[in-house]
């Protein structure tokens, strides 16, 4: 066969055959337009993040070769920025599943216009987080020991170790998130397929699995989504609980606390939601998606922020209360030093960003004022990173034996790799924008068509 005539992506997305311009097809166009052409700005941004990723990657390579001494570790602080960042990204990864799964079960329809990007973020955040485990270990080239594979040593792995739970929880979470994202994508890919040509046609055709939107397909599709939500909901709660147990299972003063699981989960949703806002605000602005992501959505996300902010604040208070009430000197000292010791700055940054600043969201005006919300969300992101920093570093630096108390300062290598993490996440998301519909077309459409039907009936 002869190849199709060369056409711009824009053209491929608007075949002349397109019927009259009404709801459904408008939605298609609006959302598919996001994937159209690439501006200079887009390239610029992509170039920057790719450079940062490359820089961080080379430093990681150097660290693997030279040894972890390049990081700022010092006895007794054996865990540093890498674990902090790992926990941070795992937290970020929670918004997606929360919005897609839990809100789905709660039939919160407003999720429809943000769930796709949230799910994508989940996948990317998990990928980023997973890397930081690799960056953290001392012998990356032996890291596969952590997998329970049959080996000539006849030795298995230690399922009593919270790190083992991590391994399972995170790989499960990654898999489920990908499945969730993909299943959701299939109908949208069909939409794209029907309107694309060239390599995109091939790609979408392959990925859409020949979806035709027959009722049989739709029926099992919504069924699967329901089931996946049912599975993902306990999963999302378990993953950060497991991560929190990395700390709660130890004897370290300031870590060994039963509140950790709910505390971390709330924190995760808090930071995840903040990250969704941080990412969606610019995307909405740049690609003119105001009609799909409205003040209404932001209002709801802001309420979520406020709620989780309160849960987190409550956890802070509880931690200090329990430390005082326990009567254990080590605990008390640990918490006193957390607030007034070497890490007092981090601690107060954390409290300001997570407990105080979000309070302005009590006012609907501010909740729906996008710039304000963006700023608040950014602060929350910072605050939540510092929360993990405070818990991990201050915990380790002030343990039982005062003779080996120490102080930790991150090295430039660690900070570069930290930046690399953010860049990596951004890179994946930016690329995603151009290849997949950033808003769940069919789900939005479902609403639109319903509304149209209603309108029609009222017209009668």
């Amino acid at each position: 066969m002869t190849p199709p005539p060369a056409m711009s992506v824009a053209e491929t997305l608007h075949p002349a055959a397109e019927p009259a311009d009404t709801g459904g097809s408008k939605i298609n166009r609006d959302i598919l337009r996001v994937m159209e052409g690439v501006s200079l700005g887009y390239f610029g941004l992509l170039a920057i993040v790719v450079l940062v990723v490359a820089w961080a990657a080379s430093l990681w390579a150097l660290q693997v070769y030279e040894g972890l001494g390049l990081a700022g570790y010092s006895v007794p602080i054996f865990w540093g920025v890498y674990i902090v960042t790992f926990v941070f990204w795992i937290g970020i990864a929670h918004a997606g599943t929360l919005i897609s799964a839990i809100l789905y079960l709660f039939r919160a329809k407003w999720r429809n216009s943000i769930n796709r990007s949230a799910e994508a973020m989940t996948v990317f955040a998990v990928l980023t987080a997973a890397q930081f485990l690799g960056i953290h270990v001392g012998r990356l080239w032996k890291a596969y020991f952590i997998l329970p594979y049959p080996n000539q040593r006849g030795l298995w792995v230690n399922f009593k170790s919270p790190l083992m739970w991590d391994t399972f929880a995170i790989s499960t979470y990654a898999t489920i998130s990908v499945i969730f994202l993909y299943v959701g994508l299939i109908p949208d890919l069909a939409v794209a397929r029907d309107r694309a040509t060239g390599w995109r046609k091939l790609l979408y055709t392959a990925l859409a699995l020949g979806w035709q939107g027959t009722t049989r397909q739709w029926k099992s599709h919504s069924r699967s989504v329901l089931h996946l939500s049912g599975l993902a909901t306990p999963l999302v709660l378990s993953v950060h609980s497991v991560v929190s147990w990395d700390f709660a299972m130890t004897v370290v003063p300031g870590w060994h606390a039963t509140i950790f699981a709910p505390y971390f989960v709330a924190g995760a949703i808090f930071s995840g939601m903040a990250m969704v806002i941080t990412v969606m605000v610019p995307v909405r602005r740049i690609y003119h998606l105001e009609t799909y992501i409205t003040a209404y959505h932001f209002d709801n996300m802001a309420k979520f922020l406020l709620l989780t902010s309160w849960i987190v604040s409550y956890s802070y208070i509880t931690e200090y209360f329990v430390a005082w009430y326990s009567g254990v000197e080590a605990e008390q000292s640990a918490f006193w030093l957390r607030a007034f010791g070497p890490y007092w700055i981090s601690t107060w940054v954390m409290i300001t960003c997570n407990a105080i600043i979000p309070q302005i969201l009590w006012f609907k005006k501010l909740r729906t004022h996008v710039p304000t919300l963006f700023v608040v969300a950014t602060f929350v992101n910072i605050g939540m990173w510092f929360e993990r920093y405070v818990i991990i570093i201050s915990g380790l630096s002030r343990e039982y034996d005062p003779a080996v108390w120490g102080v930790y300062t991150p090295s430039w290598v660690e900070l570069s790799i930290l930046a690399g993490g953010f860049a990596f996440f951004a890179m994946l998301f930016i690329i995603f924008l151009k290849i997949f519909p950033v808003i769940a077309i069919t789900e939005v459409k479902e609403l639109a068509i319903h509304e149209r039907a209603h309108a029609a009936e009222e017209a009668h």
Partner: protein
Amino acid sequence: MPSLLAVFDKPGSVAEVAHRLKNRGYGDLEVYSPAAFPELDDIVDAGPSRVRVWTLVGGLLGAVTGYALTIWMANDWQLMIGGKPFSSIPPYTVIAFELTILFGGLLTLLGLLVVAKLPSGGFGKLSKAYSARFSAEEFGLVVGCKERDVLEVDALLRDYDAKEVTLVEA
């Protein structure tokens, strides 16, 4: 054997006409819809979707695997760890739980593919009746019927304000 394609705007009318057609004995139906609409669910195959079975099986399989794996491995080479029993259930429950979810999820996906017959139409080659408009905003109802019934079905479809009715194949 010919089949007719009718195009609709509202899922409601599709549901009604489909109901009517079935009553008239025209069982060979296929519906294309741009989004999921509960009212269309039962037109082609009634009754609950069989995906649920897959999920359930997956979940159970995962749970069993989880416990079996951990307990067997811990006892295959017994190592004393922090004075804890070799088969300590609480920590292994975490593994079992995660595997429950994992297997559940994987089999749900598999279930979806099997039940919804995906990948269908050998990718690129979609069924004749299907067209891009159905991934936009319109609904398509394909009715298979005998030569002599074509006119009747056509009329019937038009009664339920089908935007257009075409003969897909003679």
